[in-house]
């Protein structure tokens, strides 16, 4: 698989302030990568470098030629007071192809409807955007990202503020788009437990640290305790991995030179969202 985006010793930050340094990793074609970490850890900074809106302070971030991104912003970045119909919003995904000063035409509308059908909400095409549920709004934004026929689909906190049902449906849809269409997907989230059960690789961004690997590599007590700075266990329920912070330990065992003790619950723990 060829690499679509390559970070080579990249230091990212704003002004002179470095947020993350020494980033070296590739995003190959067909990847399904979750960029996970708490708010303020630097997820958005990495995202901006991938989207070319942030140049590295040091090192390089290179992009494959002709790369097209389908970007799904956080839902609260979009203003739902605009009196727009769902199909109008999806057509925005074609705006960069229409040309300066020109209006979307019948073909753009057809493609927008096809994209809506692809995410299962063609019946909502003529509904006002403001009347949709959170999950439907997210599907609309995904349809808009797909209508431009991207190589990479990027979702920024796609399940933020959603209930369990909508979260499961949206993540299921994203995985389906990856598996069915072979789309490269990058998903930014603070919710490790959600993302870990859908993606193939995880990039963990925390406390200025960065670690990337397959889900199996990252979802280990050793790695997560080290990254979170508290002792955590990784459990499995019906094949779903769940990361749980130990209540009886605020510091990881690794911090004291010892190995953490996975799967040894003396008391119930708190799931790491």
């Amino acid at each position, binding site marked *: 698989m060829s690499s679509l985006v390559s970070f080579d010793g990249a230091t990212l930050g704003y002004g002179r302030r470095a947020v993350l340094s020494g980033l070296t990793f590739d995003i190959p074609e067909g990847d399904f990568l979750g960029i996970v970490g708490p708010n303020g850890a630097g997820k958005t900074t990495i995202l901006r470098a991938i*989207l070319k*809106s942030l140049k590295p302070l040091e090192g390089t971030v290179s992009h494959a030629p002709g790369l097209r*991104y389908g*970007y799904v*912003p956080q839902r609260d*970045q*979009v*203003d739902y*007071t*605009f*009196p*727009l*119909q769902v199909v*109008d*919003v999806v057509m*925005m995904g074609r*705006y*960069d192809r*229409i040309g*300066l*000063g*020109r*209006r*979307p035409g019948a073909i753009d509308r057809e493609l927008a409807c096809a994209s809506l059908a692809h995410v299962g909400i063609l019946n909502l095409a003529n509904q*006002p955007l403001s009347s949709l549920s959170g999950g439907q709004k997210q599907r609309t934004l995904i349809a*808009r990202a797909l209508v*431009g026929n991207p190589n990479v689909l990027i979702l920024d906190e796609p399940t933020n503020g959603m209930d369990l049902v909508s979260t499961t449906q949206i993540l299921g849809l994203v995985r389906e788009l990856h598996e069915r269409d072979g789309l490269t997907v990058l998903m930014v989230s603070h919710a490790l437990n959600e993302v870990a059960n859908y993606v193939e690789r995880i990039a963990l961004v925390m406390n200025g640290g960065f670690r990337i690997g397959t889900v199996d590599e990252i979802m280990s007590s050793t790695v997560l305790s080290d990254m979170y700075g508290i002792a955590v266990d990784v459990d499995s329920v019906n094949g779903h991995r769940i990361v749980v912070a130990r209540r009886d330990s605020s510091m990881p065992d690794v911090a004291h030179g010892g190995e953490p003790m996975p799967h040894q619950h003396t008391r119930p723990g708190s799931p790491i969202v």
Partner: protein
Amino acid sequence: MGASPCPTSIHARAHRLFDAVLLFRESLYGTLVIAAACSVLGVYVVLRRIVFVGAALAELSSAGIALALWLAGQNVALGLSTHPIVVSLMVTMAGVLFFGSGSGRGRIPPDATIGVTYAVAGAAGILLISKAAAGEAHDLFLHGNVLGITRADTVVLLAVAIPVLLAHLIFYKEFLFVSFDRETARTFGFRVGFWNLFLYLTLGLVIAFAMQFGGVMLVFNFLVLPAVTGLLVSRTMRGTFFWSIVSALLAALIGFTLSVPFDLPSGPAIIAVSGGLAVLGFGARIAQRR
């Protein structure tokens, strides 16, 4: 036989009303141009939640007029008393650059920056005009007097409004995208900063010219109320623009027409009608929901 209204009397009244409006028709044309231009821009002003940027720009424009008149009184440049728009434009465009480029976003919340601008510009306008030669006579520049609009003024207003409205027609897609979802627009390669500044520039231009004749209150009204009416009545962007323009023109027409024979101040009369239309729009929205 019971008393019935005399048809001749009603006819005569209507005739007098028509005559009075006809007498001030040039003023009405100018007011309609201001109404149309502001009501289109107002849709963005309301949707982008920059209503008070519009108010602050109007106050800046007003302060610019006052500054020009004060400078003329100081014999700096006598032409400024007849063409205060030059200074008004410069001051307004400084405000456009400040707000349009996102300057002032830092420790101070944006709405506080807008508030400071509004208060300081408003006070500066009053202070400068009070010390300008024949200050009281120039009060009209600050409060507006649409009845004073001449044919030449209307031509000037049209010369500003037509290119601005054409720009909004041609670049509707660009203005809409950067207003609705700037992050995604940026990832699509849209120059968000440029389009924002362009939008503010058109806003500043219209406000600066409209302010001279309409005054702060009327311009602010045309920037907000018709757009609110449009949003209440319609569920599409096209419909919102349509109803915003229609309600602004109706308010100008009805308010102006009623103000002349009843000797009412034209600006407040137009604003009162705008308010009435917004209430009707609210009623229409409630009716749509049922």
